[in-house]
């Protein structure tokens, strides 16, 4: 589904990704771990199409077509979703109106008519209930004065509504207490099918207890230096990243 080959990217002249290779197939869950500043969030942003980053080398194939030239919204229309580490506050637009707009814009891009209002309402009810969200929450301004947990839950709610092929979860666990983490992870697991894939970007192994990955990658200094199964995450939790860096040097 997603095939990244020798990806180099920079922001304002600073090289951040230095040759990333990654392949994710339908039905899989991949995790990317790594120390601060290793390029994890950059990778997420670049795949989602953030124009602040410049791709200088390599390619990103999604469903076999190169998406490097596509804008963020065009990538979303193809089924890529990024859950933000820091969701942006948009005062004056309610959660419901925002998601309605997003869904109908995606449908428009796919040549479909607007989703009928009753169908939309039903879906909103169903997905918000799945994530244990209060009704009142839906009419509040998007992310405005939301707690950290509410923001992340709202990201997963949007993911549930949009049903992407590839969901990238950027530090979705940060700012969540254990109960909120369970709800969010439970939501992500319920959304898994054999046709979609998830890329979890995280600092800590904690989230991976709940969203169990098929493959774990370690990103250090803009490169994936090791990949393994879920046990690699546990090892990283115990031993940190330094041994891997040393292993690299040797």
């Amino acid at each position, binding site marked *: 589904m997603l095939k990244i080959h020798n990806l180099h990217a920079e922001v304002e002249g600073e090289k951040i990704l230095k040759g990333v290779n990654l392949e994710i197939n339908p039905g899989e869950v991949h995790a990317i771990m790594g120390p601060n500043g290793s390029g994890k969030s950059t990778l997420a942003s670049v795949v989602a199409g953030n124009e602040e980053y410049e791709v200088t080398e390599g390619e990103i194939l999604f469903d076999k077509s190169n998406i490097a030239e596509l804008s963020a919204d065009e990538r979303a229309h193809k089924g890529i979703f990024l859950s933000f580490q820091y969701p942006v506050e948009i005062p004056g637009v309610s959660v419901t109106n925002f998601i309605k*707009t997003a869904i109908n814009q995606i449908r428009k891009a796919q040549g479909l008519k607007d989703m009928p209002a009753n169908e939309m309402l039903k879906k909103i009810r169903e997905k918000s209930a799945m994530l244990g969200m209060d009704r009142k929450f839906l009419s509040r301004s998007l992310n405005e004065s939301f707690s950290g947990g509410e923001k992340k839950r709202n990201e997963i709610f949007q993911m549930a509504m949009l049903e992407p092929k590839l969901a990238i979860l950027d530090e979705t666990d940060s700012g969540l207490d254990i109960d909120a983490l369970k709800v969010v992870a439970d939501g992500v697991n319920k959304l898994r099918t054999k046709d979609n894939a998830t890329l979890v970007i995280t600092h800590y192994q904690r989230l991976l207890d709940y969203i169990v990955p098929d493959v774990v990658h370690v990103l250090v200094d803009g490169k994936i230096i090791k990949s393994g199964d879920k046990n690699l995450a546990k090892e990283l939790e115990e031993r940190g990243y330094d041994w891997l860096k040393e292993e690299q040097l040797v």
Partner: protein
Amino acid sequence: MKLKEKLLSSFMAFEENIDLENDIHNIRNEAIKYFETSGFPHRKQEAWKYTSLNAILKEDYSIFPKKEETIEYRDIKKYCIHDIDTYQIVFVDGIYASHLSQTTHDKFDACLMSSALNKAKYKPIIKKYFNKVAPQESLTALNTAFSYEGAYIKIPKGVAAEKPIQILNFSTGNEHALMIQPRNLIIAEDNAQVQIIERHHSLTDNAVLTNSVTEIFAGKNANVDYYKIQNDKITSSLIDNTYISQDRDSEVSMHTFSFGGKLTRNNLNFYQNGSNINSILKGVTIIEGKQHVDHNTLVHHRKPHCESHQDYKGIFAEKSTGVFNGKVLVDKIAQKTDAYQSNNNILIDDQATINSKPQLEIFADDVKCSHGCTIGQLDEEALFYMRSRGIPEKEARALLMYAFANNVLNSVKIPEIKKRITKQIALKIGVQLGFDL
């Protein structure tokens, strides 16, 4: 002949045509004398630093237009709030158009300034209120000198006007260039309530200059809810001078929607003359091209325990320019004043300009006064966030601008106006959104 000289000589002709016995005669005479000395405002005056009238004063305006009778309702319908029942006071080229209007004298007066100024029964009211809150300032004095026609609205004690009143001014292409000077007087006596919608619109591409003066008096516990819709043609300019005197416990709210016109200057002045008064000033400006909108506000807190809330938002595209000059004056006696002022602006293009100047003069020591002013572009991070959810750039920008203007619309009490302004904003931004905010 320069406009000033033309106006001065026209004044003689104007005075000859109206009844010299009228009490207003002296007021008009003093006003023209004042204007003769002061002339038009110029950029060396602090309040006019960022707004130059030079270009619009160069036109050879007709001062006394011919009566235009070919305008019919279908020509003006789209500029009226026509989906709800209202009273309408309509002027075409500055002259009252009875066939387009619906006035009343039943429970209250919603009629013509010319009648009020000339009929004996209105004499005490005119004597008490006319030109009592409008100060001697050049453009206001000029309007006073030529004051003859406009809307006269008087809501007696305890009466609530059952439907909104629209004051509509249209100009036609009868004259090569036309200057009109409407003069409105609005009185809401103690415990009275009224909603008013005011609009100026040109039906021609010829130059139009409107120099309007509105005096509003809100009695004790009165409520005046006023909307100005400014969405005129690029050939029309408007100088709106509004003066509001409030008595204790009253609330006056003024919404100004500025979406078009060559030059628009809003001189909006609130004077609080009792305690426990609330004054609300809100504005949304969205302009492009070379349009210019200037909001020059004053709230004068003269008594203790009063509030004022100012919230102006502007979106400026292309080479448009905006000015916000907001003055809050708190007298020494006006303790416990709660004055809030906010002016937020978005510049869409590099060549758009906003000059924002909050001025707070506070002489009392136990007050709560706050002001904030921001100037920025649309938040790139917010745009990426929205685009990552599948909302294309154009729609994402529109949604952000919409959201930006939204909290000003929250306080609009007439749903039809809210709906229209919402639509108007969508139209301005060039996008259709699937919901109303």
